[in-house]
């Protein structure tokens, strides 16, 4: 248990992740879970800032986690913005699930599709897999 835990820590240590969710409670919880794993987390509750945040050179993200249905700017927009960057995996975590939505999201290039509520272990697991496919980015 301790061993695998350290392994994950190592996998995720200092990785940069952008978390987008208009629900502040959810955003705080995800930020805390991922920070506990040693990740550098940037949380955005206003999805309109996604494009400008992604466009900045600092920090460079290894991963984007986004909600799907948000006011003004949808997860699809986040997905499109992230897809514009080479090999930036996107995990969608949403309250608006469903087989068809999932299929659509995966087809649009999402790395994974999770439905709320999600367990911390599951989230970390998926994040770990996503980061593994993401190329190492030096800060």
């Amino acid at each position, binding site marked *: 248990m301790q061993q695998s835990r350290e392994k994950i820590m190592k996998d995720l240590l200092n990785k940069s992740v952008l978390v987008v969710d208009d629900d502040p*409670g959810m955003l705080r*919880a995800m930020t*805390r*879970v991922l920070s506990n794993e040693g990740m550098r987390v940037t949380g955005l509750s206003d999805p309109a800032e996604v494009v400008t945040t992604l466009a900045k050179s600092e920090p460079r993200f290894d991963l984007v986690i986004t909600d799907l249905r948000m006011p003004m700017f949808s997860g699809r927009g986040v997905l499109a913005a992230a897809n514009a960057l080479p090999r930036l995996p996107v995990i969608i975590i949403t309250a608006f699930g469903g087989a068809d939505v999932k299929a659509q999201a995966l087809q649009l290039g999402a790395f994974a599709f999770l439905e*709320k509520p*999600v367990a911390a272990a599951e989230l970390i697991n998926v994040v770990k897999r996503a980061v593994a496919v993401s190329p190492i980015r030096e800060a």
Partner: protein
Amino acid sequence: MGLASVFTEKKTQGEQTCEPVCQICSTLGFDVNRIEERSVQSKVLATVVAIALALFLGAIDYVTGRDWAISAFYLLPTCIAAWGAGRWTGFAVSALCTGEWFLSDMLNGATYQSPLIPVWNGIMLLVFFLVVVWLLTAFQESHYHLEQIVEQRTAALRAEMEERKRLEQANLQAERLGVVGSMAAQVAHEIRNPLGSISLNLDLIGEEVDALAKSNSRSSDECRLLLREMRSQVLRITQVLQEYLQFARMPRSARAPLCLRKLLEEKLGFVQPLLDQKQIGLSKIFDPDLPPVHADPEQLWEALLNLIRNAVDAMPGGGNLTIATKKNGTKALVSISDNGLGMTEEEARNLFVPFFTTKTDGTGLGLAHTQQIVNEHGGRIDWTTKRGEGSTFTIQIPLEAGT
């Protein structure tokens, strides 16, 4: 319970339509007894009355002599015979009356200038009677035809009204389900966000508790137990939400030819452990010649599974579950019967009402969802129940066209 009884017990709404039609006709003043169906007794009675009256009039005719005109009264028995016993009896009574008139005329010692005159008068009278009988029965016949047409049209109208009422109710139900569904979806989504945060925070607390326990070398068992309890409640909410959402965003069915027998044989295997656990025996009565149905296998199974779950819940002390399939015209019937508690009137009335449930842990969406699926497939659900003896639900699903 045998297959035959399973299906004959089914409720049909059309069975009793004839009676109200008759009632309507009689309140409108139509006599709906058909001429052919008129009893022999009433015909005999009319004939006897007509002949007796004719004989009585004949006697009066003879007694009163030639000066008193009686002949018009002969119309009375003639008409009675024609109306009550039909055209040919009417003709016969006409002949009888004419004969009586002629006889009483002769016996009273009538003298005419020519012997042909009384014969001629007799013929005139007979022809008059015959025409009256003919007209009367013709009127009666056309009246009867009119009655028949009215009866047919009333029945057709009533059937149409029933169908419209059914469709209207189905539409209303669909509309209500639509509103309920979108509301359920909205509520479910609103709850899922905080629930997601609660779930993650519980996990964080778990880690925190473990870390604290380690540094203080104290047992964290009690805390873990509490956390586990909270997680199981979160899971329960999640499952309820899942059910709501499943109901709210039912996708359009992907229908294809489907062998019901295969579907049931395959899926019932998954239910078997539950049945074993509840000490419920399973009887399968599948029609081996049932053609394929036009259905979405996943959705149809979901509908059937809801009915099976309800049947299992209705037999808390164990029992017998019967699943039967049968062909009925262009539809396949699948019936699910239990010999459990049966339903109260209130339960039966609220069967398909969303959120109505008798279970402590039910969402009240199971049967509403089942009905939604069956309606979507162009089928229908019928049911019978008897308090203390169990219930039977029967789903009708259209067969694949061309089979």
